[in-house]
């Protein structure tokens, strides 16, 4: 769900920020396979799987829902993001700037930076749960909103400060550690699942001789499909499918990965995202869910979702190291990128201090378990918030000329704020908010109609905007 990529997605310090990537700098398929596998096997995967269990999901719904949802996510990369990336070969930000103008991109940066901050906070929280195993302090419960012990606050402070300092100095070393750790981490996640499965078999006395027995165990013990924990939304097949599809919506349909896939030789390289989806968002989620379900089986009153203790019980120190590295290596670039996004808003501020302050905000956020324990809702919100701009880019690239309008209109007329794009974004979010709060549509489902609303609004508003705002000098 999170990202380890470097600053090619940022405004400064990266290559080909304001020009298409040249042919001789394109990368092969393998580069993307490794990147996606590592990027989507993050510390937060250890939260998401258990939160599905807490949402009372059934075995069929989670196994098939994830299969379909992840497949749709891969198809979104292949058919929505990659074709534009490999044709325009521009960063997301430069492409947005051409469409929306500098000021609107700054607003987008701000939204992106805030969401990155919260996401990094969740990753810091995950890392801090590993410290809890060593120092044995009180850790947050599933429904806690506020920090519940001094030990917890200190642990998050220490983890977050270390991560922030490293990010401020430039996180390249951590990024390298993350890349080196990726194959090992994926296997440790799989080992979690295998170990948890055996623990279930032993604890329930189930006789397992074939796959059908495993399926029966999954249905009756692991994902029982009962009522959700109090205060949680009951997850069905549709919840799981849409969650899996849209949890990285900012990256595929939201077009954030234009910045990455612009280096791909062919648009079909988008299928490389399948490694991340089916290793990180399938196997890792299922494995983490098995560990949490086993914890509930042993003590139904212990509903805490704490990756550190879960991993330690299953795989000992190796599991604990996995939690720390998974949290650290994903929190670092997230803080770094949040800092760069904020720096674009305040260009005169030094990157070092902006990143450090951003890390500080993420650390304080991480002390409050509300976001981490509500990660499913937060991730859905994250995708929703940035999705309308993806719809704007899609329409601007493929459709707008069919309506007799111009693409890249801000660049064409020298505007710094394309109101058609800005209004399409904000009105879509307002409609989504109304649908969620007054029409009873859950946040997991609102992004799909939201995309069509944003696309339609952008076309309609551009018809008005492009009539009113004319280029000073006619473009060729």
């Amino acid at each position, binding site marked *: 769900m999170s990202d380890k990529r470097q600053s090619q997605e940022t405004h400064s310090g990266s290559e080909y920020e304001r020009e298409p990537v040249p042919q001789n700098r394109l990368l092969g398929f393998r580069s993307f396979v490794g990147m996606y596998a590592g990027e989507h096997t993050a510390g937060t995967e250890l939260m998401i799987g258990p939160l599905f269990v807490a949402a009372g999901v059934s075995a069929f719904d989670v196994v098939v829902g994830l299969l379909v949802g992840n497949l749709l996510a891969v198809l979104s990369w292949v058919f929505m993001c990659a074709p534009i990336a490999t044709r325009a070969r521009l960063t997301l930000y430069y492409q947005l700037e051409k469409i929306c103008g500098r000021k609107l991109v700054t607003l987008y940066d701000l939204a992106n930076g805030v969401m990155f901050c919260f996401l990094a906070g969740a990753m810091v929280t995950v890392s801090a749960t590993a410290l809890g195993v060593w120092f044995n302090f009180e850790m947050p419960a599933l429904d806690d909103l506020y920090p519940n012990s001094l030990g917890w606050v200190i642990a998050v402070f220490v983890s977050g400060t270390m991560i922030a300092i490293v990010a401020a100095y430039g996180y390249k070393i951590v*990024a*390298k550690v993350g*890349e*080196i*750790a990726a*194959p*090992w981490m994926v*296997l*440790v996640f*799989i*080992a979690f699942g*295998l*170990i948890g*499965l*055996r*623990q279930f078999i032993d604890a329930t006395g189930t006789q397992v001789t074939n796959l059908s027995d495993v399926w029966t165990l999954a249905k009756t013990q692991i994902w029982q499909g009962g009522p959700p924990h109090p205060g949680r939304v009951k997850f069905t097949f549709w919840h799981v499918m849409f969650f899996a599809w849209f949890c990285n919506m900012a990256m595929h349909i939201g077009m954030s990965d234009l910045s990455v896939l612009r280096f791909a030789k062919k648009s079909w390289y988008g299928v490389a995202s399948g490694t991340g989806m089916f290793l990180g968002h399938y196997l890792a989620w299922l494995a983490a869910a098995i560990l949490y379900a086993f914890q509930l089986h042993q003590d139904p009153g212990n509903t805490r979702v704490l990756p550190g203790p879960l991993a330690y019980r299953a*795989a*000992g*120190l*190796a*599991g604990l*190291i996995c939690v720390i590295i998974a949290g650290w290596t994903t929190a670092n670039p997230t803080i770094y990128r949040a800092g760069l996004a904020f720096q674009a808003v305040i260009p005169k501020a030094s990157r070092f201090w902006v990143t450090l302050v951003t890390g500080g905000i993420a650390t304080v956020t991480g002390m409050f378990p509300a976001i981490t324990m509500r990660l499913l809702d937060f991730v859905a919100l994250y995708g929703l918030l940035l999705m309308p701009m993806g719809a704007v880019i899609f329409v601007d690239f493929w459709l707008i000329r069919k309506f007799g309008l111009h693409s890249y209109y801000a660049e064409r007329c020298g505007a710094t704020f394309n109101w058609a794009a800005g209004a399409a974004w904000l009105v879509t979010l307002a409609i989504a908010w109304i649908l969620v709060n007054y029409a009873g549509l859950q946040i997991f489902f609102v992004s799909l109609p939201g995309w069509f609303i944003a696309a339609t609004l952008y076309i309609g508003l551009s018809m008005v905007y492009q009539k009113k705002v004319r280029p000073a000098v006619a473009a060729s």
Partner: protein
Amino acid sequence: MRTMFIIVSVLSLVVLMVPSILFLAGRMELNTVKWVMLAATVLWFAAATPWLWKQTS
């Protein structure tokens, strides 16, 4: 030297996975699994870092 590091790294990943498979099959104790996984972890980082450090960008 590089080839040796690559071979050891790949082997360490095999050693990392085998204990959990054996545990699933009921042929290894959990404590042993944990220690072998820790050893494989140390081995992986020791052997993979020298060649992957240069390869990663």
